[in-house]
């Protein structure tokens, strides 16, 4: 084999790619999630974090990762995820008007109840503990983090029980107001959805790509606008939403909101 004979020449040429390395003209602002992560990270740098007693205050900071979908405390409502008031001792999948995955309802029917132990297992690897869950969260690896978060949940979930969890959350006044004001055409949304369901499954399963069915209108519209305006950073979603207008976003919200999970 004559490879050695080509090495010298090759080095020069192959090395050239470094000069040509493409820097995409992609502006990627720091996301609110990244900020939350950095904040969480700052607290993580305290020494000897393992085997410490659960710290609910630290758990409250970790809870930021949950806040986009879950509400807790006074005025908590069902949103993308169910509200978390009265969580401890609650049967899984038992909130009447929330669109759970069928798997979560079945597990609840089979006796799954939220306790320190079950929450710990679920939060560590949601998709492993309840295969087919709609919750898109990837999991919290560190025991201390889970202990702290659960300590916060225990404290906050009993403090101010939700009074009216089914009343839709008011939309953010400045985000997607025009789309919010429209009545989305679900038929148009179904057509547009063909671009989404290449990745997001209509069954509501979250196998590495979030479930987007059965969301409240305001949450859906806000999420798309957050991608459209680069508040949320995800290349595919920013690209997908770049050309979507208000009518299209409202139509998609209406269509996906109408789908029941399997």
């Amino acid at each position, binding site marked *: 084999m*004559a490879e050695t004979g080509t090495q010298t020449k090759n080095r020069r*040429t*192959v090395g050239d790619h470094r000069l*040509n*390395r493409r820097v995409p003209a992609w502006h990627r602002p720091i996301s609110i999630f990244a900020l939350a992560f950095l904040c969480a990270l700052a607290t993580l740098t305290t020494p000897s974090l393992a085997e410490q007693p659960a710290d609910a205050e630290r758990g409250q900071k970790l809870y930021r990762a949950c806040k986009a979908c879950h509400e807790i405390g006074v005025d908590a409502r069902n949103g993308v995820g169910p509200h978390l008031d009265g969580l401890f001792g609650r049967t899984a999948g038992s909130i009447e008007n929330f669109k759970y995955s069928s798997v979560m309802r079945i597990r609840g029917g089979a006796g799954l109840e939220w306790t320190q132990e079950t929450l710990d297992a679920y939060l560590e690897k949601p998709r492993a503990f309840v295969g087919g869950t709609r919750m898109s969260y990837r999991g919290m690896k560190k025991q201390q983090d889970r202990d702290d978060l659960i300590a916060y949940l225990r404290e906050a979930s009993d403090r101010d029980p939700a009074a009216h969890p089914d009343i839709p959350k008011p939309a953010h006044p400045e985000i997607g107001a025009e789309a919010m004001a429209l009545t989305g055409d679900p038929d*148009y949304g179904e057509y547009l959805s063909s671009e989404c369901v290449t*990745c997001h499954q209509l069954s509501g*399963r979250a196998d590495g790509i979030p479930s987007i069915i059965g969301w409240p209108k305001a949450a859906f519209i806000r999420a798309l606008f957050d991608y459209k305006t680069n508040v949320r950073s995800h290349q*595919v979603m920013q690209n997908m939403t770049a050309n979507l207008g208000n009518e299209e976003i409202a139509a998609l919200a209406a269509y996906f909101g109408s789908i029941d999970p399997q």
Partner: protein
Amino acid sequence: MTQISRRTFGLFAGAGAASLALPLYARAQGKPKVVIIGGGAGGATAARYIAKDAGDAIDVTLIEANATYTTCFFSNLYLGGYRTFESITHSYDKLASNYGITVVNGYAQTIDREAKTVTMADGSKVDYDRLIVAPGIDLIWDSVPGYSEEAAEVMPHSWKAGPQTKLLKAKLDAIENGQQIVMVAPPNPYRCPPGPYERVSMFAHVLKEKGFTDSKITIIDPKSKFSKQALFQEGWDKHYPGMIEWYGPDVHGGIASVDPASGQVETDLDTFQGDLVNVIPAQKAGMIAASAGLANESGFCAIDPYSMRSRVDDNVFVIGDACIAGDMPKSGFSANSQAKVAAMAVRGDLIGSKVFPAKYSNTCWSLIESNDGVKVGAQYAATDEKIASTSKFISQTGEDSGVRQETYEESVGWYKGITTDIFGA
């Protein structure tokens, strides 16, 4: 047959799209018939969307030569040991049972566009009112001198997933430390632009796992640059230092020939010897596209960007790797996207259902090493000239490992999503 441009078509449609559909009902004395040739990412998606959205109003027949379908996308992950062959192989059962599609397991031999009939290899005929042609690619064997269908048994191409993929995997797994791998990469345009380079990454992953530090992988490329080049080369430097050499045409000077008997690849510069040689030749639209007169001198089929309708026959649509899709790459994602536009146009033709403006999108994920995924993608719109890119993105070099892991996990989710979208649930 004279071609009706979208504008002209709009004149007819302006009087109500049903005006085109009605004569079909009258003539056929029954349900209008759609026949789809090819049950891959394009064809199966088109069949499912027409059947799903038209209900009982359209008779849908899907013709596919193979009993099951193994996806080309993720077949590299099978080579790398990340997926089983079964996990990338799909059945047509749900399309038949849940959507009422007639799945014909056979080879479509010829198309008579005047009679609007497809003739099968066994001589049987299938009539259509609208035909969707999605045959994928065929290989141009003699684009690499010395290469042939027979040579592919020794130097696999594995650019159509199936037995060739298994052959390449067997040869890869049989490599011993110190043995060499050579890939002859394809010229543009070809199926899955980042595919050869993801495949090389998987080769290297397997060698690295086994600790085969004396084996090298050489890519002889007819192109002077390739898809996601900076990302791949950064990844190769990081994960497989010194293991992969890429030679563009300015180095090797041209690929003269390959010799299956000796495992040699001869270039103007030198002769390369491989214990495993993976030759990916130039490509053209699947044979039936050319024999039916749908392909032009490029070997691929020109289409109307607004509808995926053939430029040469208004009753025929061409989707996926076989068509000339402007800025869109030849990919499973693209084919799936084009299928939805064609499905809508066909329904509009046949039952007068509403035709919305075409939208196209594509994302290609590639795996460089475990949990190191990258992606490139774009959105497209139809213009009179072509399907044109309107916005695009690509993973960045130097991204942290968390982002790369998320990208990989996303690709796994996408695989589940798109195969459900293609083959039904």
